[in-house]
């Protein structure tokens, strides 16, 4: 077994230390070491976006990043999106618009959309589609996802912080 490395990162607002093997991806560390199974494994080649997390504010496929590369980074996963029991507007709009069917791609979409809305809270439909083009959904045909992101952008612009108890 390869020697493990101690990694310190800020994950969902908490400073966390964990041990990982050099060959373990960030996704494996999140899921298997830290028990944050919200990020999903869909392809392991960066094609489906189901494992998307925010690393220092940018959407990243956590299957393509090594766990050791998380050293000193700020990482946000879907588990860190809601504020306690208060949902993020994107989570709320995904529920209202029925934007999830099987739900496996949902965490990845939420994180990619979060990255978009944090840099551009007034995107056009085309901008939403470009931002989400790295995330595959096989259930919905994307229609309701795009609508939810545009609607959430509206909520964020008008200062709606939330909604429903989680």
């Amino acid at each position, binding site marked *: 077994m390869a020697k493990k490395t101690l990694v310190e990162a800020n994950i969902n607002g908490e400073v966390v230390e964990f041990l990982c093997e050099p060959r373990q991806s960030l996704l494996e560390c999140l899921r298997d070491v830290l028990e944050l*199974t919200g990020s999903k494994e869909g*392809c392991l080649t960066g094609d489906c976006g189901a494992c998307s997390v925010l690393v220092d504010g940018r959407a990243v496929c956590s299957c393509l990043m090594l766990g050791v590369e998380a050293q000193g980074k700020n990482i946000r996963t879907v*588990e860190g999106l809601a504020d306690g029991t208060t949902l993020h507007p994107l989570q709320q709009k995904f529920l209202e618009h029925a934007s999830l069917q099987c*739900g496996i791609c*949902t965490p990845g979409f939420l994180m990619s959309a979060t990255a978009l809305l944090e840099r551009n809270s007034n995107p056009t439909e085309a901008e939403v*589609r470009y931002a*989400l083009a790295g995330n*595959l959904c*096989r259930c919905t045909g994307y229609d309701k996802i795009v609508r939810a992101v545009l609607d959430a952008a509206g909520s964020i612009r008008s200062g709606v912080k939330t909604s429903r108890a989680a």
Partner: protein
Amino acid sequence: MEGTTSNGKFKVIGTRPIRHDGIDKVIGRAKYGADYAFPGMLHGKVLRSPHAHAKIKSINTAKALKLPGVKAVVTAADLPEAANRLEQAGEMAINPHYLSMNILARDKVLYDGHAVAAVAATSPHIAEEALKLIEVEYEVLPPVMTVDAGMKPGAPILLPDLRNREEGDKPTNVAQHYQFKRGDLEAGFKAADFVIEREFNTAMVHQGYIEPHNAVGIYNADGQATIYCSTQGAFDVRSLSAQVLGVPVGKIKVVPAEIGGGFGGKTTIYLEPLSVLLSKKTGHPVKLVMTRSEVLRASGPTSGSRIKVKMGATRDGKVVAAEVWMAYEAGAFPGSPVGAGAMCILAPYTIENLQIDAYDVVVNRPKTAAYRAPGASNAAMASETVIDEIAEKCAMDPLELRIKNGVREGSPQVVGPPFKRIGFIETCEAIKHSDHYNSKLTGAHRGRGVASGFWFNAGMQSSATVNIHTDGTASVVTGSPDIGGSRASMAMITAEVLGLAVTDVRPVVADTDSIGHTDVTGGSRVTFATGMAVYEAAQDAVRQLRERAAKVWEVKPEDVQLVDGAVSVKDTASFEKGEGKTPMTIKELATKLARTGGPITGRASVNARGVGPAFATTLVDVEVDPDTGKVQVLRCTIAQDVGKAIHPSYVEGQMQGGTAQGIGWGLNEEYFYDDKGVLRNTGLLDYRMPTCLDLPLIETAIVEVPNPGHPLGVRGVGEVSIVPPPAALANAIYRATGVRMTETPMSPPRVLKEMLKKRTGEESQSAAAD
């Protein structure tokens, strides 16, 4: 979005509440199969064949077993011989002998990716390393990759024991020949003013669910095993695994995890028996998860096909004869959906004279599995483009041609009795009156196409219980894994019958020990059949509630009614007014259950009859790049007869999702094998499913022609939406370019090739004229 009701008849059904499992899914708390972990759990990996067709001469696992961290290796020698007979498993007929050979190859490998051995180790990485240490000696055989190659006299034989009725004792690759006939074909073609004959090839495609297959197996010393997995049918996993492992079903419990898509592909088993076998050998829980490459190489895609269609019609647009020859790739073992394809290909039309010959052919590709209306999209690609050509020849609007020839209540089906109330014509009318159809399509290289599709839908077995809690809320328990929002529809049906708020009903998907037998989540059957069981279980609960109220009031149960969530005496005037006879809400009555007979559980099990078939019609606008052949979808509308939309948002979602898959099938997706039979596009980047940049917003027209066979009018919604898109795209491409595409996917190189052929042909014609 809130508060809309359907026809004024329902209070909950037809509204759009937030799904009950939604919050868990948006906060990352929902537990899918790969999310399970247990103390001492080991990780499994599967060794797969690098050859499409080869004899296994020997397997040596000694070196792998010596690798530190490796706890067990299994091969086919660890599996018992399974029965060689056809058995019904949910929607499909399965031969346990072949199923077992697909789980682990016995004497031969039959496709690139065929499982040969499995390893359990303390980490997935060690298990992967161990795979490289397993020595397998192969004798490579020539692969058979297409139906044409498989049907050719003298073709290499995949399964030496495979026989069919017509060829007697001769080894063959043709597992089945189905034939459907009606009328007088010769006379029909004679009566036609013109005949169109075309040949089509459609590529093998995959369901493309985002979640890979997974299983955690736990074998206990008492011989009881538990399997946690993401599946469309926990009861089928139980029975199929039991057959492969050679144990009674009572020894296995299957706990269905959340499921990340299936579309038919998760109705069978791959890893589940291996997880139990490895757990039995090691005494530890064992988890296996496929990689994406394994999903594409070694799970069940749907058949590629070769189809010939010949149709005769009169000048006024009446189709008078049709002859179809179709052969589908079954993959390595018999069982393509060609029979279903044969029954769907002409289903939307009343054609007096027809003959359909359909062949199920084994080839060196993975064993196919169901995929959303299995077999129907390939078929519709062929028939619906010929129908379009007939409309063009008759100078008729293609929708008018469909309405003229379309099936209605009483029209004969390809086989069996006439259709009951159906809504095919209504889907054509909905498109005809849509904003999309009535808008003008302008611009160069643009075209608009329409196509229709049919799917049977399914009934089968379902069980449900409705429990009244002591606070007057309820839970509804079923055995149908929720793949697209069915928990919400089950809760809505319960709430509708009991008169409760939908938020007061908690839907539960139970394991195989906790609910009666329930067939797969597939065949568009859950809201129909499980919904029927839920409806009846809720009615059973209502009956018991009325009995309890009657007991409290000392009246007859038939004199008590339940309206809007409250029990009351039907005719108060006929009873003495007094204490205890004022209406009680279920909440109030629930507090009295312990004193009036104990808990209330409404129960129902159904073998659902009265299935209502489904039709859909799709309209699509495209723009074709004249330099590259790339097809961009500009606008798309689908009309589908759903019977009754319980939760319209999720009905729309099914229609949109099916359409998106149909567009992917039509334009880009395909299994690409090299000449040795090795799959070359084993990742999603190269497999090329549509992203949100490839699709427009998909407009929906929900058509509701109630199914008379269901208490709520439900038909089922999951499947038929995938049927028309490839043909609608082909028809749109024709109008944009003048090129009739007869092959899927209609990818840029294929479209460009046909456009160049046409241009060259036109140029040489004009040169000849000069």
